[in-house]
């Protein structure tokens, strides 16, 4: 027995954190028997540091920080293939979603580009009520220090009448701003 390392399921504080993640995701990691079907069919598995199966294994082995720091949770495209195919009914995509939100609230963001994209996207919605595609691309590319990425697409988009230079603003903008504020406040109260 001397050389084996004992790895136990999460206890105490970690157990509480994991329970919260599972509750938000509406799924249970203990259902997973590590068959790997989720990862075999994952269209972005090739680019991940931990496959979806491995992410669940990390959680099962109380390596929650490792999971929250995984690049995988930011590479996951939320395509839901894993959840649709899981023979044990684990909602892996929803778990990835919950992990992203948890990592975000803990300030652990492995892939800044994805997080910045989401931030830029939601900023547009918060301010105008709708997505402003041109502003979104510009803001995202500036924030991530790649101002010339997609520069070649700007003109063709314009010449095709596919990009608006000014955002559409809905009448209920104030209402939408309040929705953002209340949703953020209520989420904060839960934790």
């Amino acid at each position, binding site marked *: 027995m001397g050389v084996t390392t004992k790895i136990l399921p999460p206890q105490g504080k970690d157990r509480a954190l994991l329970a919260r993640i599972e509750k*938000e995701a509406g799924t249970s990691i203990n259902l997973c028997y590590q068959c790997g079907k989720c990862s075999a069919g994952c*269209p*972005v598995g*090739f*680019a991940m540091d931990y496959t979806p199966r491995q992410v669940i294994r990390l959680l099962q082995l109380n390596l929650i920080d490792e999971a929250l720091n995984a690049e995988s949770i930011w590479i996951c*495209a*939320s*395509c*839901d*293939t894993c*959840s*649709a195919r899981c023979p044990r009914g684990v*909602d892996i*995509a929803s778990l990835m*979603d*919950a992990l*992203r*939100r948890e990592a*975000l609230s803990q300030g652990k963001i492995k*892939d800044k*580009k*994805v997080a*910045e*994209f*989401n*931030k830029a*996207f*939601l900023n*547009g*919605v918060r301010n105008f*009520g*709708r*997505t402003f*595609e*041109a502003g979104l*691309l510009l803001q*995202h590319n500036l924030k991530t220090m790649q101002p010339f*990425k*997609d520069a070649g697409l700007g003109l*063709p*988009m314009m010449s*095709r*009448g*596919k*990009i*608006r230079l000014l955002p*559409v603003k*809905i*009448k*209920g903008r104030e*209402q*939408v701003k*309040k*929705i*953002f504020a*209340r*949703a*953020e406040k*209520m*989420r904060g109260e839960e934790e």
Partner: protein
Amino acid sequence: MKLAYYPGCSSEGSAIEYDLSTKKTALLLETELEELEDWNCCGATSAHNTNKLLSLALPARNLAIAEQNGMDLILAPCAACYNRLHSTELIARKDEAVRERIKEVIDMDFSAHTSTVSVLEWLDSKVGVDKIKARVKNPLQGMKAACYYGCLLVRPVEHTGFDDPEDPQSMDRIVRALGAETVEWPFKVECCGAALATSRPDIGAKMVHSIISNARDAGAECLVTACPLCMLNLDMRQAGAEKAAGEKLNMPVYYVTELVALAGGASPDEVGIGKHFVEAKGYLGSLPARTAAMAAAAPKKAPKAAKAENEDEAAVGNEDAEALRKKIDAMIKAFNKGPDKMAARLIEDGERAAILADIITGDEKKIARLAELMITDKDKAGKAAEAFVTGELKRREKAGL
């Protein structure tokens, strides 16, 4: 039929053709669309990546507006919008506590009794393919399409449920009703990469390339989609995917509504086909000529030969199928006459070439395959030959020879 219309943010920009063609299709099929008043963004993936309650509240404001106006059925052409709106309806309907929290956030009455449908559900289940068929004026004969469903129209299963999640058929039925042929292919529900094409183009380009090349290998000459983000990735970002993969694809991509409107008599410009990034009008223009050529060639041939001809045609584009058949036949003769000579043309290494000559002698199937590839794609012929030899060597090794 009257539906509330939720156009989605991309309808005002990158997916302007989807909006145009959906409206044309609705006119054609006598569906009245009434735009939802002062609708807001559904929040898409960014919202549920960030805050779950927000991801339910943003769609819910729109649903509540529909309820206020007495509209029960909502059409959301964008697959992401459809998914967010419909998921919110189902989650809020099932869970009263969640519904109450949503009401608190949006500060509106909300009963979650509406039903949001996708374009596919509207066309396939509400209108029906028989009615669509009856409205076809310009059948899309000669078109070989790969219907691409992507993720959000078929998953999560419990939130969509109008079609099979692994091998959906609704779009195939619609496209076939228009006179086109649809191919069977494995990547119809594979993910296009969604926002990764923007946030992580290194990953996105690979995903786009694998979908388009898979459709091409299955014999498709165009892709059909019902999602603005899929369109953006497959069409606008196709050039980037080509560059990353070092291979030209030139695969036109159409919205399913563009095809319905076209078959119903609209002109390509009316529905915005000229706005695509990958040139898409030329293929439509070539369809009548292809149909005529196919009709002229078909009766002369036995069914088996006609099938082989179709496959060749897909590989070389416009080259005359008759001439191609002759070339391949001549090549097969050459293989039968001098297998060792032909083997030497395919493989440099003398020893391996001898093995190839040995295994193809008398093997009609292998000869036909190599002959076809020699005409259509010499590189591939070389690779196939090498694979035959490697396979044979493994077999010999196993047998202990």
